[in-house]
């Protein structure tokens, strides 16, 4: 089967999954105790005008599917509703914060790719104590949750050594990057270890394979064997895993932003949960879930492009 059909199938699956996810995020409103209206206004006194505004925003007079339709149509036009607390359009509250989150995740992703691949390839090619030490370290690092890594990094590098600021996001671009060093490492640590372990396994499998043994026995230079035969094939599983791992950073960012007070989408989400500002919660969860699903699909497609056997094989599966 052609790559085109495969892409079309993935695109349809992507749209369906996004619709299902949005339905779940919207329908959550009906899982809350009480009526949607009492849930949206809980814990505060609202004027009749505010009540009418919330009712109108969620179209609560209409049926569920019609409400959902209005909401999705709004979201597609960039209208995520109005913050109950901030009385401002949700989208206007998200912009700058989304950029902060993007910076954090991008920074962590770069660390994961550079260090994870370097450690994994080194361990995969150098058998013996180098390999064993790196893998013991990686296995240990995988057991460290991001928030624990954050606390330990703050203790060592901010409190004791004063190399980095404890909290805050910084002002200028350079300052911001400087403020992102500790959060980025904390967020990346476990994923670095994970990607390193997988890279090592993939490199080792290729290095032991028949075609590599043949290339070596034909007398090809070691560098050429490694770059053309080992790494090129090993990249296929690595790209998938690295991509999925980066997708999973989205949830980790919520916690890390909270620790370092970075004022991104994640810390705003936690704040909105505390303040019972449901339109904001809904919007952020939907955005993060959508980014995750799109990333997953991109990884899937990339995998198929790198390895044409996949699009052919999976059609029949």
């Amino acid at each position, binding site marked *: 089967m052609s790559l085109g059909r495969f892409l079309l199938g993935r695109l349809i699956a992507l749209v369906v999954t996004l619709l299902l996810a949005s339905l779940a995020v919207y329908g959550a409103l009906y899982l809350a105790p009480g009526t949607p209206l009492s849930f949206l206004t809980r814990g505060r006194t609202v004027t009749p005008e505010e009540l009418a505004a919330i009712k109108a925003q969620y179209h609560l007079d209409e049926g569920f599917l019609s409400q959902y339709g209005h909401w999705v149509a709004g979201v597609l036009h960039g209208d995520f509703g109005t913050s109950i607390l901030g009385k401002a359009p949700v989208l206007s509250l998200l912009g700058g914060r989304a950029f902060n989150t993007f910076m954090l995740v991008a920074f962590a992703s770069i660390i994961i790719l550079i260090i994870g691949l370097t450690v994994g390839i080194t361990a995969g090619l150098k058998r013996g104590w180098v390999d064993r030490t790196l893998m013991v370290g990686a296995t240990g690092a995988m057991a460290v949750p991001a928030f624990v890594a954050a606390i330990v990094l703050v203790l060592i590098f901010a409190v004791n050594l004063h190399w980095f600021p404890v909290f805050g996001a910084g002002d200028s671009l350079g300052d911001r990057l400087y403020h992102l060093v500790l959060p980025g490492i904390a967020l990346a640590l476990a994923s670095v270890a994970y990607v390193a372990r997988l890279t090592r396994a993939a490199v080792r499998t290729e290095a032991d394979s028949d075609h590599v043994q043949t290339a070596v026995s034909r007398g090809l230079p070691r560098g050429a064997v490694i770059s053309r035969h080992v790494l090129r094939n090993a990249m296929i599983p690595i790209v998938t895993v690295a991509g999925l*791992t980066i997708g999973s950073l989205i949830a980790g960012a919520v916690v890390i932003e909270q620790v370092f007070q970075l004022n991104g989408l994640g810390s705003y989400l936690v704040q909105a949960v505390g303040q019972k500002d449901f339109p904001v919660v809904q919007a952020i969860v939907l955005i993060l879930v959508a980014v995750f699903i799109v990333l997953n699909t991109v990884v899937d497609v990339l995998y198929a492009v790198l390895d044409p056997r996949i699009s052919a094989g999976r059609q029949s599966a």
Partner: protein
Amino acid sequence: MSILAVQSASPEPVEMPTSSAGRAHRMGVGAWIALGILVFFMLVALLGPLLISTDPASISLMDSFGPPQPGHPLGFDGQGRDLLARLVYGARSSMLGPILVVLISTVLGGTIALSAAWIGGAYDAVVARVIDALFAFPGLLLAILAVSLVGPGLLAASIALSIGYTPYVARIIRSAALQERSLPYVSALTVQGLGGTSIVLRHILPNVSGIIVAAATLSYGYALIDLAALSFIGLGVQPPASDWGVMVADGVPGLLQGYPQESLYASACIVLVVGAVNFLGDRLTETAEGGR
């Protein structure tokens, strides 16, 4: 789930039998140590509160950040509460909470995976697509959404987390069940006239149980991390109740003033347990995959 379990397209290569005896012995020791750590903390969670007479919530500001003293071997937190008592009571929610997540996600994921592998066709195709699209779904996001609906606490969050984990568990079990299904003995049983339900439950399920246990073990570690993270950001277990995640967060002001004990002790408990669980999970995965 912060990271995915090792489920690569290319499994670890089989080690050459150079030092197989010594290596097997070492692995055995590692697994025993990991199991010992796990059993120890489980016992602490179950029995510890009965054995300890100190009240984890009793505040005495005189002892703020106090050093260890007789009867208080780990010293005190910023409010003068006994750190050992808080760790022991915190073990309950931290160690037992994830069990619920593992149970729900394994039953749910197992049912979806086994039925999809057996029924096949369009049903399996749809299940496979959805599992792929939601694989490694950040369950923590669902848990936060659940908390925003019903308020802080672990119960709703655990259920939401389980749903988030289900695609991950289902994907692992489905691929094992598909392999099993293609084996000749299944066709033989079908020819003998055995019904689908009993083939799946009595023959396929026992044969993939090793993979299921391995996946459940690894998801216990992820669930422990996610629930502790939830408590850490203030949406899970609520202070003054004790929980390791709560303690890491509670300890931050002390940590900035040069008293990092509370955060570090609670962190050490989390890392020890998760490390042991991951180690066991990896070994179980290797054993289960080696056996097929």
